[in-house]
């Protein structure tokens, strides 16, 4: 099996590749909740029962063709920081990382599939792909799920579908979610109506790390809330349709920024580059928000030589647990802020800063770039 260090050293498949609308859609993820017949759910079982179950199912999972030579770890062998690193990589949920004995995670070599054992349900099977590609993410987990169901008796009811600990996951047990980078909708103050409209169709909008988290760095997660009463392909098709609409709005907003608010746009990107390139203290929030602007600059060709995967990787490297793993010790928030700045300065060295505006268009024009006479 793969070692933790090897797993972390390599960027995940979704970070290297590109998918449809990669400039706006960072990832597409699908997770399936599954449980074994005849076992209480993890939240209501005794520790020994969870350990028993884990001992029986882990070898089955590890021997799946997709998971062969992957990474597999019992949580009792994982430090708090390492677990947090897996959360930051979106390989396990925060809830799962908070648990310990009787829990494990198995990840494939490409870091495209992860299977959490004894999360809220016995199994949470997750697939992740770059760009807007929920179909392909579903194909990944669908295959693994079918193979597992050949070997394990899943709790299933003909009327209610897959039986899950929480009734909100009944039926398909499927949650499909898309991570979007929407800086132009935020800058042009159109984001709230968009979120509202998406919520009205029964989809949930959340921040970077799921439930209850803030939308830092202009990153938004959109996912389905209904799991019962519709088949998987229908649910996925509906979300993709909605996301296509959001992507179009973001594209329109970006075009508008370019045409009507060019000075403001250049100012934002330029400031982001300057601070990230030269700061010595960077809080997580500030870094995420500035990296969002730099990414927008790269998408609109305002900064050169800036590979999107470099920014994706940096976004992970500056997260608290990644910093502490890198330092091989616990760091105080102050130490983290200075180390975050150090890594950011180093990684961005190769990027060309934003050039100056073409003279004909650099005159203050649009409303957002109106001069500030103080």
């Amino acid at each position, binding site marked *: 099996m793969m070692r933790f260090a090897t797993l972390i050293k390599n960027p995940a498949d979704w970070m290297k590749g590109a998918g449809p609308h990669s400039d706006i859609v960072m990832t597409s993820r699908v997770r399936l909740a599954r449980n074994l017949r*005849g*076992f209480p759910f993890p939240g209501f079982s005794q520790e020994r029962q969870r350990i*028993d179950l884990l001992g029986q199912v882990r070898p089955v999972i590890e021997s799946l063709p997709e998971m062969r030579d992957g990474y597999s770890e019992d949580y009792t062998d994982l430090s708090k920081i390492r677990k947090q690193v897996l959360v930051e990589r979106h390989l396990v949920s925060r809830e799962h990382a908070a648990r310990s004995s009787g829990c494990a995670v198995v990840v494939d070599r490409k870091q495209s599939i992860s299977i959490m054992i004894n999360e809220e349900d016995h199994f949470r099977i997750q697939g992740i792909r770059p760009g807007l590609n929920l179909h392909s993410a579903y194909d990944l987990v669908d295959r693994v799920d079918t193979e597992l169901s050949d070997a394990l008796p899943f709790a*299933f*009811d*003909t009327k*209610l579908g897959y039986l899950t600990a929480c*009734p909100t996951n009944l039926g398909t047990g499927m949650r499909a979610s898309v991570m979007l980078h929407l800086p132009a909708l935020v800058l042009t103050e159109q984001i709230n109506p968009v979120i509202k409209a998406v919520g009205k169709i029964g989809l949930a909008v959340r921040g970077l790390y799921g439930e209850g988290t803030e939308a830092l760095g202009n990153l938004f997660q959109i996912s389905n809330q209904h799991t*019962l*009463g519709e088949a998987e392909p229908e649910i996925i098709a509906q979300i993709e349709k909605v996301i296509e609409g959001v992507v179009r709005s973001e594209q329109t907003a970006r075009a508008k920024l370019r045409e009507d608010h060019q000075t403001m746009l250049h100012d934002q990107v330029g400031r982001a580059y300057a601070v990230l390139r030269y700061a010595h203290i960077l809080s997580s929030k500030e870094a995420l928000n500035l990296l969002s602007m730099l990414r927008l600059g790269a998408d609109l060709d305002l900064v050169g030589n800036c590979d999107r995967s470099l920014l994706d990787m940096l976004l992970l490297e500056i997260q608290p647990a990644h910093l502490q793993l890198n330092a091989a010790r616990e760091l105080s928030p102050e130490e983290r802020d200075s180390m975050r700045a150090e890594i950011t300065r180093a990684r961005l060295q190769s990027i060309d800063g934003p050039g100056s505006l073409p003279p004909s268009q650099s005159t203050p024009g649009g409303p957002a770039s109106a001069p500030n006479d103080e």
Partner: protein
Amino acid sequence: MKCDVCEKEATVFLTQIINGQMTTVNLCEGCSKAKGVTEETGFGLAEAFLTHSHRPDENMEVVCDACGFTASQLKKIGRMGCPECYTAFREGLDGLLRNMHKGTRHVGKRPNNQGAGTPQLLPRRRGAVPAPPSAPAPAAATPPPAPPPVDVNKLRADLDLAVKEERYEDAARLKAEIERLQTKASSK
């Protein structure tokens, strides 16, 4: 310090004073979550404590035969105890699901091995561990064989002793047994 509910190390300590009477409860992280202690609203210490084991006259509450999960636990945490709970608590479920989902009937994927004989995995029987059902159809749950005559009062005495001696696994088993007998008696 051990958790008052299970045997794990307690990490949440609660003290509540009502009418000058002080009560203390020690809970592990899992149980404190299950009891809703970590939620900001609606935590009643006495309630959380009493629903566990100290209320022998808890009458006619619906309990899952397979795992011992109770209707009030379901109400509190909004989650089921085991797959069989969906049969035990099926009353009112449709209404709940209608509010939650697009429909109340599953139309998606089905697993391969449904009804394919006995599952390979059998849980080791311990305490309130359920035996796997022979058929997945929940509506067709066969009634269990008539229980041997058991003195409920004797079980209650055993339960009190188990709690006193901090044998919480035994206590949980006894409590589930008492509740099972009571539900049965009341449904006759």
